[in-house]
């Protein structure tokens, strides 16, 4: 009886937390299907009185929305892909190679996680400008090809793999790249997927750096498009902004649903046993 009561308390707490987290999403979805007048009069009604697709149609008419989605996806995919590759290779080197200054290098690398973006924003902007990548998607991508967080997460995950597995492969004359492909990747897959998701969502939601680099609308990312409707430029068209918001979160949500098992696994995994 006591245990049931205890567990109920936790359940109520979890339900409250989930509600707090989900209310803004429900609000956005609901208002994206309302007219502006309806939204102002019944803002907190979950079910729209007169559901309409007007806002979505408006977005597609007013903006090269497909292009913007492709831009965002392109940037997020390339950034995620590169970060995963560089993190995987660096983490492998940090775990399995012995070289002078390894710990110092790792320390320096991890310390970059604590440097605020605002500090490196201007040097990066100047570099990108000099390279001629202003108002270019590659300008957004180039400074983000590696990430200390990814190296840290994958290194932690690789450290749970018994070293003897790698040694067994060395004895079979397996190259390091093949070891990564055949042994490391399958064993750190959950960590790899969740790190990838984190990178993807971070890049997808990125605002400050793209707003600096990208100028023309056809190069915009979804965050910039969203900003058009909630700033002085777009003003009060907040139902349209909600429609853009819903479309912005659609792809990361689908990715999360597909990979949720792996993501949850990563955070509950205690280690790999041989």
């Amino acid at each position, binding site marked *: 009886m006591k245990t049931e009561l205890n567990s109920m308390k936790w359940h109520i707490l979890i339900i409250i937390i989930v509600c707090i987290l989900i209310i803004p999403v429900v609000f956005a979805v609901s208002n994206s299907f309302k007219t502006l007048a309806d939204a102002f009069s019944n803002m907190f009604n979950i079910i729209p009185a007169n559901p309409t697709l007007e806002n979505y149609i408006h977005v597609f008419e007013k903006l090269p929305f497909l292009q913007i989605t492709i831009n965002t996806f392109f940037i997020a995919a390339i950034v995620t892909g590169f970060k995963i590759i560089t993190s995987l290779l660096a983490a492998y080197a940090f775990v399995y190679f012995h070289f002078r200054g390894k710990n110092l290098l790792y320390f320096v690398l991890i310390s970059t996680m604590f440097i605020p973006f605002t500090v490196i924003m201007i040097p990066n902007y100047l570099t990108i400008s000099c390279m001629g990548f202003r108002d270019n998607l590659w300008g957004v991508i180039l400074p983000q090809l590696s990430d200390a967080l990814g190296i840290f997460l994958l290194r932690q995950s690789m450290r749970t793999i018994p070293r003897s597995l790698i040694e*067994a492969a060395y004895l079979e004359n397996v190259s390091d790249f093949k070891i990564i492909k055949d042994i490391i990747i399958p*064993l750190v897959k959950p960590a790899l997927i969740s790190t990838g998701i984190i990178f993807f969502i971070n890049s997808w939601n990125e605002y400050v750096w793209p707003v600096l680099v990208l100028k023309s609308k056809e190069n915009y990312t979804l965050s910039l498009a969203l900003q058009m409707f909630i700033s002085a430029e777009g003003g009060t068209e907040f139902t349209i902004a909600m429609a853009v918001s819903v479309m912005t979160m659609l792809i990361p949500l689908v990715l999360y649903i597909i990979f949720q098992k792996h993501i949850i696994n990563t955070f509950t995994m205690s280690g790999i046993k041989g």
Partner: protein
Amino acid sequence: MKDIIFDHVLKAYGKNVVVKGLNLNICEGERLVLLGPSGCGKSTTLRMIAGLENITDGQLYMDGRIVNDIPSGKRNVSMVFQNYALFPHMTVEDNISYGLKVQKVDPREIEERSKAAISMLDLNGLEKRKPKELSGGQRQRVALARALVKRSDYFLLDEPLSNLDAQLRVHSRKELVKIHEMYHQTFVYVTHDQVEAMTVGHRIALMYDGILQTIDTPSNVYNRPANVYAARFIGAPSTNILEANLNEGKLIMAGQHIVPPEVWIQKMKENGGDMFYFGIRPEHTKITTDYMDNALKGIVRYTEDYGNKVGVYFDINGKELISVCDNNVPATGEKVYFTPDYSKIHLFDYKTENSIGYPEDLSKHNYGVVYELRGRLAGDRS
């Protein structure tokens, strides 16, 4: 010649030297056991053969060539790891054949070799299972099969039985010997278990503190220990070791004395010096509560029952000795007389702790001689 030669090999991690100038010849096709306590450098030695550890100094020869800088994969060695190192995401079949596939061996050959290993190690029906679905014994057999399919010239085993229960360990070590008898690779086996070492090895290399203490056949390591350490390490319960002073034909130990046979006195004189270490295995002693001449006297402190025998710990002027007996077990606190079998005693130089050697014919000098000696002693006294 698929032999392995360590020539003054040294291995250090920073300032910590774990293998100190090792000289060791492992002959082609032999089963050599590297034995020693934890941290003695035996696994490091094995890993140097495998190429998994760099050699700090000295030369390692395999098949007649220096292999110090040759990577593991090019040394033609198979290894069974203590934790088996099976790839957890691969099936038994894939684990066994992975190395061959990487080497691009003909698929028919891979299948043939895998099947042979699977049936030899009784893994039929488990081919599609993953390691986590196997018992400890089955995992160990998969690790063996993986090492076997490679058909390499050198077979290295790093405490392969240590994760198995006692019964399975006995069975598996017989299997290992059988496998070696079939393929005759150069077989290097690391263990801290002396029974395993005695039963598996053609020769045992005993290591301690990074130094090779002795290398010999199991029988010699047991019966003719090269030094005090070897005498103490091999055998359970451990060999009794006492400081002994040779004085006018008597050996004074722990404040008492015995008179050893003349051949031993001669041997000690040949060695020179008057201080020695006297060693005798508990199973080569006799204790009795009845008075005995030429015996050490002690008080029983503790007994432990091994089932078939009883170990009797007794105290001689503060020195603890142990004797193993099967009947007439004295009680704790009783006074006992302790006599060694003089054909089985060991004497070591006090400074070097190395054996002073053995008289040529010891067969006559067992307990019987001791009793004959009584007459001589009685004569001496008169």
